[in-house]
């Protein structure tokens, strides 16, 4: 006998932010089909910005209810909008907003960071035609919105199946976006493929873990799993293995050691505005999800997972800092820095302390702002050839030498982000670092905090390396040619001159953004300072709603 179908009652209010973003993404796909090419970019950018701002407004409206009642539980736990979820969504939206501004900026060179026609093979005639016609791949914006929607759901679900779907919704657009760089396209496509393959691998672990947990507990709901964990049934081994595999999937997403291999290649290959978005947004989403998994679903397994969490946290901090020390490319350097930061955040997570979630979220906000800002700046520091034509980004560290003299404002802003990464007081990064370390000490994980501060000291070295390079170059940029001349003359004649001459012709310059990226960088910089000096308001707001719904 077939039971009568009962339509579920869905309370759309708490879903509104996610719905707005995803709906806008769908509309964006339609715009691609129906809007004439010359209006498409404006339409897409407007739509994306409006959707993100609209979602932020919707979140703001939900704030007071969440604060007073503890949150919403939609569709019996498939979607949960409690305090941590709301804060994570808000951070993701802020990052998305700032990133879209950077992506939309075509700079004075009138080119954005994306290939004019991604489907054209690199170096082919099609590509040349697309470039000369000034075509643009405006699908970027709907893809970013889909990824944003996935990120928002990722940390706000109380159901393992939804968690997996959200993981794919956020990952697939990012795989695509990574391959869309305008320059160094082969490297970009390689990054995309690598990200996809390793991501698929991690997804497999993840879904296998879900299957094991389901096998052990007979349910996919966090709350029911939590109950099952509390009552011994003899299937703890299965449960523990499943939990670890789920964590592996999440470790992959945050770039924790030993699941970090993709990070440097993908960060380097992806279009720089996408790198900023991905580095900041994915981390927020994945850590939000990890916190919920650990604090709600596996709260009873805390002690058994401690060894895993501690090992991964320590390894991540050490590998991130040590490998970061020897990087010569600014994007790879920030990639290893992001690995180290994942380790610092993990110290706050691994403490399994009640201060954990709020401190981690604040850290991610501080880190996200500095990341988006730093990558935005990288996207405008370009190479200039002898003929004056501005080409791709100058990502080799050596090309940043002397930027403090030639472009002081850009260099000082970048300095600010580096100081925030390094956790120097009076920047948001310091407050975040203090918060997670103090959560770790409070939770009894003081050895983690100790290793954390030592790693911070080592990590500071590679930020300082960039600062030294920008502000105290080994030789003045203007003196470079005069210094080199005697050396060349002392060489064996014209052959040396011919060899060294072309290398020096490429100089580093900063292209002028057409306003959007400037706004984004300025907002990131101002917030980094403001949250460093007056973090009280935001910290209070986050800690007021720090409790998870069961």
């Amino acid at each position, binding site marked *: 006998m077939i039971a009568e179908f009962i339509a579920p009652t869905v309370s759309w209010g708490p879903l509104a932010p996610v719905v707005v973003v995803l709906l806008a993404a769908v509309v964006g796909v339609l715009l691609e089909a129906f809007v004439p090419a010359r209006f498409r970019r404006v339409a897409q950018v407007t739509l994306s910005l409006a959707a993100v701002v609209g979602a932020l407004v919707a979140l703001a409206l939900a704030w007071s209810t969440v604060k007073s009642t503890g949150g919403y539980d939609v569709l019996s736990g498939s979607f949960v909008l409690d305090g941590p979820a709301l804060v994570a969504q808000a951070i993701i939206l802020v990052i998305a907003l700032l990133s879209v501004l950077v992506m939309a900026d075509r700079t004075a060179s009138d080119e954005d960071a994306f290939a004019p026609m991604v489907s054209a093979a690199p170096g082919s005639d099609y590509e040349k035609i697309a470039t000369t016609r000034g075509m643009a791949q405006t699908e970027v914006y709907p893809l970013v919105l889909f990824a944003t929607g996935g990120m928002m759901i990722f940390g706000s679900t109380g159901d393992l199946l939804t968690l997996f779907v959200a993981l794919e919704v956020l990952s697939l657009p990012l795989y695509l976006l990574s391959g869309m760089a305008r320059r160094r396209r082969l490297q970009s496509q390689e990054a995309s493929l690598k990200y996809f393959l390793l991501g698929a691998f991690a997804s497999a672990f993840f879904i296998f873990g879900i299957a094991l947990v389901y096998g052990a507990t007979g349910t996919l709901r966090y709350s029911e799993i939590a109950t099952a964990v509390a009552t011994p049934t003899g299937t703890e081994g299965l449960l523990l293995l499943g939990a670890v595999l789920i964590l592996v999937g999440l470790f992959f997403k945050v770039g924790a050691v030993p699941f970090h291999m993709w990070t440097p290649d993908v960060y380097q290959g992806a279009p720089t505005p996408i790198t900023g978005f991905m580095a900041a947004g994915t981390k927020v989403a994945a850590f939000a999800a990890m916190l919920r998994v650990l604090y709600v679903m596996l709260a009873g397994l805390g002690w058994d997972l401690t060894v895993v969490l501690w090992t991964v946290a320590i390894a991540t901090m050490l590998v991130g800092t040590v490998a970061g020390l020897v990087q010569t490319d600014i994007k790879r350097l920030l990639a290893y820095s992001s690995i180290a930061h994942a380790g610092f955040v993990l110290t706050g997570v691994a403490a399994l302390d009640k201060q954990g979630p709020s401190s981690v979220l604040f850290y991610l906000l501080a880190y996200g702002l500095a990341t988006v800002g730093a990558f935005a700046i990288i996207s405008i520091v370009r190479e200039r050839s002898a003929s004056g034509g501005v080409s791709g980004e100058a990502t080799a560290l050596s090309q940043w030498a002397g930027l403090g*003299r030639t472009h002081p404002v850009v260099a000082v802003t970048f300095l600010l982000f580096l*100081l925030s990464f*390094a956790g*120097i*007081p*009076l920047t948001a990064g*310091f*407050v975040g670092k*203090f*918060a997670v*370390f*103090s959560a770790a*000490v*409070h939770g009894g994980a*003081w050895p983690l*905090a*100790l290793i954390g*501060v*030592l790693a*911070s*000291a080592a990590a*500071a*070295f590679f930020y*300082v390396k960039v600062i*030294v390079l920008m*502000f*105290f170059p*080994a*030789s003045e940029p203007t003196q470079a040619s005069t210094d080199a001349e005697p050396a060349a003359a002392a060489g064996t004649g014209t052959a040396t001159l011919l060899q060294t001459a072309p290398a020096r012709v490429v100089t580093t310059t900063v292209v002028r953004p057409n306003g959007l990226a400037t706004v984004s960088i300025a907002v990131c910089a101002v917030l980094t300072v403001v949250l460093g000096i*007056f*973090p*009280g308001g935001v*910290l*209070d707001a986050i*800690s007021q709603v720090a409790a998870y719904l069961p």
Partner: protein
Amino acid sequence: MSHFPWLTLLIVLPLLGSLALWLPSPLRGRAREVALVFALAEVAVAVIAAAGFDTSRAGEHQLVETHSWIAAFGVSYAVGVDGVGLALVLMSVVLVPLVVLAAWREQGSVHEATDGLRRYLALALLLEAFMVAVFAARDVFFFYVLFEAMLIPVYFMIGGFGADRSRRRYAAVKFLLYSLAGGLVMLIGVIALYMQGPGGPQGFLTDNLTGLSLDPSVEKWLFVSFFIAFAIKAPMFPVHTWLPDAAEQAPAGTSALLVGVLDKVGTFGMLTLCLPLFPNASRWAAPFIIVLAVVSIIYGALLAIGQKNLFRLVAYTSVSHFGFIVLGIFAFTSTSISGSSFYMVNHGLSTGGLFLLVGYLVARRRSPEIADFGGLQKQVPVLAGLFLVVGLSALSLPGLSTFISEFLVIVGTFAVHPAAAIVASIGVVLAAIYVLWTYQRVFTGPLPTNTPDQDVRELPALGRFADVSVVERWAVVPLIALMLVLGFWPRPALDLVRPSAVTSVQQVGAQDVPQTTATSEAGK
């Protein structure tokens, strides 16, 4: 008047000056004048604030302001000074205008970039704000924030201006990494200390963290984490090696601020944080620290004698002097601690002056090597005279204020650790060697002409040296005047620092050895 936020004004004023120099404005072209006006205004405000300070209650914090800053962490913006803090604040604000004056003519020579001087002065004013704030901080977190944040302007002052491009980079990075490493270890201590305290929105106030009955082993670890940071900053043997490099590469004004004021944060931290917060651990560690301090005294002095470079020489004399300060603090008698507190002020004046004078010499000769000098006494008599007086203050000649502080430290220490005091006194003898021998090599004898080697290095001839200009003279004369006045009439300064010292001894729970005769004699 007592409710007026004098200390906040003292912190904000140099910040405004720094901003005025950074921001594009018509003032940019007159950087020297703007910086001097702000620095002098700061002195005036500091004097007015000091007038409102009740010396009879110098052991307590006065001019107090407390506002909640980051309630979630229990952090307050809490400032206030006791006698020691006030003395150091005054010393800092006096030193800054003199550094500005000393930099007056350096435009174009040391600061090669066109507006290098403007950036340099902006950083110096920014640093001044941090210095005042750190000596006035009454909140452990606030102190820590300033302790770390002030590294950044100093880093740029060392790395951005100075003689040798690649070596100053090395010096700046070394300075930053040493300090950061020490600071981060302290951060763990700061967090752990808060956990031990009462918590709440004012949980980081020093007052709320004083007198906790900590678990002995926890207290020891906390003490160690704080002490390492302060020992690096001070700097003490064996973590002093960044100082000679930094002092050698930085311009003289930077070194004067760095050694004269900034490094005092280390000893100030030991005195105002380590002692009251961790009294038992302080007593536990004292013998060990006293040994290190005595080693610093002798080792610093011996190395100073062996230096060939004037800047490095002054830096090593400071390692020796910091040994005295630390020795006095950890001898735990009110006499020795008064001596150390007064020593901090005097050392700022004396070493600040010494760095500025060495800066004058080096700016003329374009070389800091002692071997490149000789016989200058007749050529530049005023400079030689100033150098001699300031040098004599470094060897603690009676009649100069440095004598009184060193005397108090040794006498106060002798009462409890006679052996340490006796060995430390050898440092006084060594000081005579490094000062007088340096004077002899630089200023006495016949005026040498350039050797061929010196000609190759294009050093200006010694015979064409000009004596100190009016501006240069006025950058040093106030320091000498202060040292003379405090040398003959130290009572006001001792009245300021003595009550705080008595409080410190009580807090640390040591048996004080009153030496009324010694102190009152010195006070005459």
